[in-house]
């Protein structure tokens, strides 16, 4: 019987799920995901974690508990150190498997694959074999599985660049048919970590709310690399968090190119990297003054009505600036 690998639907699930799924399935394992985020999952996470932990991590721990209750053979909690040369992720990803192991009791074995491209990709080749050997003892098959998973990731990233959100792209890869980023007429850049905006429960359906109000939503993942690099040219010093850098540099790029009508940044309460990048962005947008900028913070207490009011007001502002609404 094939082994069941559980993948928690949190944090980098939204960036790498198709890749991870392909990898484990090629190795002959069955991949199970946790349920969609719900009240119970968040409550479990909040109860288990230290209270100052950020909401996405609390939710992730909730998903791990959900998988534990579902009964799987392994839970995949990667230690994602770096996905680009000389850039890190936030500290919490570096210690994630340790954190999960020490917080949640009676866990099935954790696959703590180290994902580290800080010094290039040699390290990954060894790590892939270590993890692969949990399933089959065939080096060439493991390497094939890895190649296949990389291919899946490239397909996934292409779909996202076409204007689908990460969640939609995952659905498309599972075989669903979806329309691209509908007809919204106001272009809004949603600058945030994918796990803050892609989880519909955490963000209270932020992306869809915006779309329903007539927005064409651009997330950081949809923005082409060369645009981000153009924005990076404006940095005093290269930023060492890759997702934080994507956010900051896309923001800087839009100030130059003026190709969006408004910018919204979303961050989780107490997020370390965002506290710095948000401040820098806000400063830039204030100095420039030509594109409206709004910053939203989410935590486990966020109220839906408050969010809606702010979004409506922001959209009205944009329409008023375009001359569609008379003051």
């Amino acid at each position: 019987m094939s082994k069941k690998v559980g993948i928690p639907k949190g944090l980098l699930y939204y960036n790498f799920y198709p890749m991870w799924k392909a990898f484990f399935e090629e190795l002959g394992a069955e991949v199970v995901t946790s349920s969609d985020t719900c009240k119970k999952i968040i409550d479990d996470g909040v109860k288990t974690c230290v209270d100052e932990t950020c909401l996405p991590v609390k939710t992730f721990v909730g998903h791990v508990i959900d998988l534990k209750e579902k009964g799987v053979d392994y839970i995949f909690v990667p230690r994602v150190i770096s996905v680009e040369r000389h850039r890190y992720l936030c500290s919490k990803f570096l210690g994630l498997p340790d954190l999960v192991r020490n917080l949640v009791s009676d866990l099935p074995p954790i696959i703590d694959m180290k994902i580290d491209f800080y010094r290039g990709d040699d390290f990954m080749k060894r790590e892939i074999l270590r993890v692969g050997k949990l399933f089959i003892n065939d080096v060439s098959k493991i390497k094939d599985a890895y190649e296949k998973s990389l291919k899946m990731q490239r397909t996934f990233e292409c779909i996202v660049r076409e204007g689908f959100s990460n969640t939609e792209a995952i659905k498309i890869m599972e075989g669903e048919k979806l329309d691209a980023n509908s007809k919204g007429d106001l272009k809004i850049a949603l600058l945030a970590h994918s796990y803050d905006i892609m989880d519909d429960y955490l963000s209270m359906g932020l992306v869809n709310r915006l779309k329903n109000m007539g927005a064409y939503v651009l997330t950081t993942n949809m923005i082409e690399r060369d645009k981000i690099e153009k924005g990076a040219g404006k940095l005093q010093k290269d930023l060492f968090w890759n997702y934080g850098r994507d956010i900051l540099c896309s923001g800087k790029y839009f100030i130059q190119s003026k190709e969006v009508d408004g910018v919204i940044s979303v961050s989780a309460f107490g997020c370390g990297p965002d506290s710095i990048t948000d401040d820098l962005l806000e400063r830039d947008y204030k100095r420039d003054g030509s594109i409206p900028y709004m910053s939203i913070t989410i935590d486990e207490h966020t109220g839906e009505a408050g969010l809606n009011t702010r979004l409506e007001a922001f959209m009205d502002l944009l329409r008023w600036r375009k001359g569609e609404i008379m003051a």
Partner: protein
Amino acid sequence: MKITYPHMGSLNMILKTMFEGINVEVVEPPPVTNKTLSIGVKYSPEFVCLPYKINLGNFIEALENGADTIIMLGGIGPCRFGYYGQAQKETLIDLGYKFNMIILDPPHGRLVDFLKELSSYFPDVYWKDALKAFIFAVQKMIIADKFEKKLLILRAHENRAGVTTKIFEYYMEKIKNAKNKKELDSIYKEGLEKLRQNATTKREIQLKVALVGEIYLMLEPFSNLDICRSLNELGIEVTKTDFLSDYLINSAFKLPQRVEFKKYAHGYLERDIGGHGLNTVANTVKYAEKNYDGIIQIFPFTCTPEIVAQGIIAKVSSDKNIPVMSLSYDEKTGEAGYQTRLEAFKDLLERRRLKNIKKY
């Protein structure tokens, strides 16, 4: 050029000694007070950590006092300290200050490269003078740290409350103004003698607590509401796990301590996660094994590496059967609340000791 820098415990003393040794004019940032903090808070991002806010307050106060060049350390992550300087620079520009900011990124954490880069900013200085100034500054730092280590033990035994702190402050000022190594040694000897004279109280139950956590909070007493003093005055001996001299020596000769840390943290945290997360976990294990009565972790509110560590050392606490208390600090300082928690912690530790005595 009038140079200034942020406060961090005894860092002021060392940098002042060093820059004056190479004839660079220094504008000492005024001592950290509530005013410094409120200025910093006013212009900082809301969720940034406490050290950032205090540093920014230091800069503004020093610039108002006439400084025109700020020296700040950088970093390569993943702790956000590595981008402090850049963000603070933007803030100060928006506030309309005219200044020059030197942000020193430790290239590979090696002291030699670091000094080379530093010297490029001061072209008129002979490296011989610089080296001399640097060595004397380091000597001062080592003596000051040694003196403080003694203080943290002796103050728990003081006969009259408050006197030890006064003696300590008096001699620290003397160390700060010392002109050569000989003077330094005699000040240290005299100071230690004075500390000992006032510390002869003995207790039936003598508690020992190790302080672990984030380095800035550990080094700058203002930021932690002088937790060492509060603990000492409750009669508890304190071991601080980070001192500036240890920190510098370890970043200069990187390896030995890191290997030690990894060994201690093994099974709980398998790699460096930025900031002082690994140190916190390793030190918790280390001092639990040394049979300390309790461990207190201090860190700035929203510090990500320490939050990860906090979750992990809770497990260490139950595995090793040692009480661990985590305290996070931000600008909303309420001294009474923390005092109550420290007193409760002391009661808990004492009761555990009593229980063990009864067993025999």
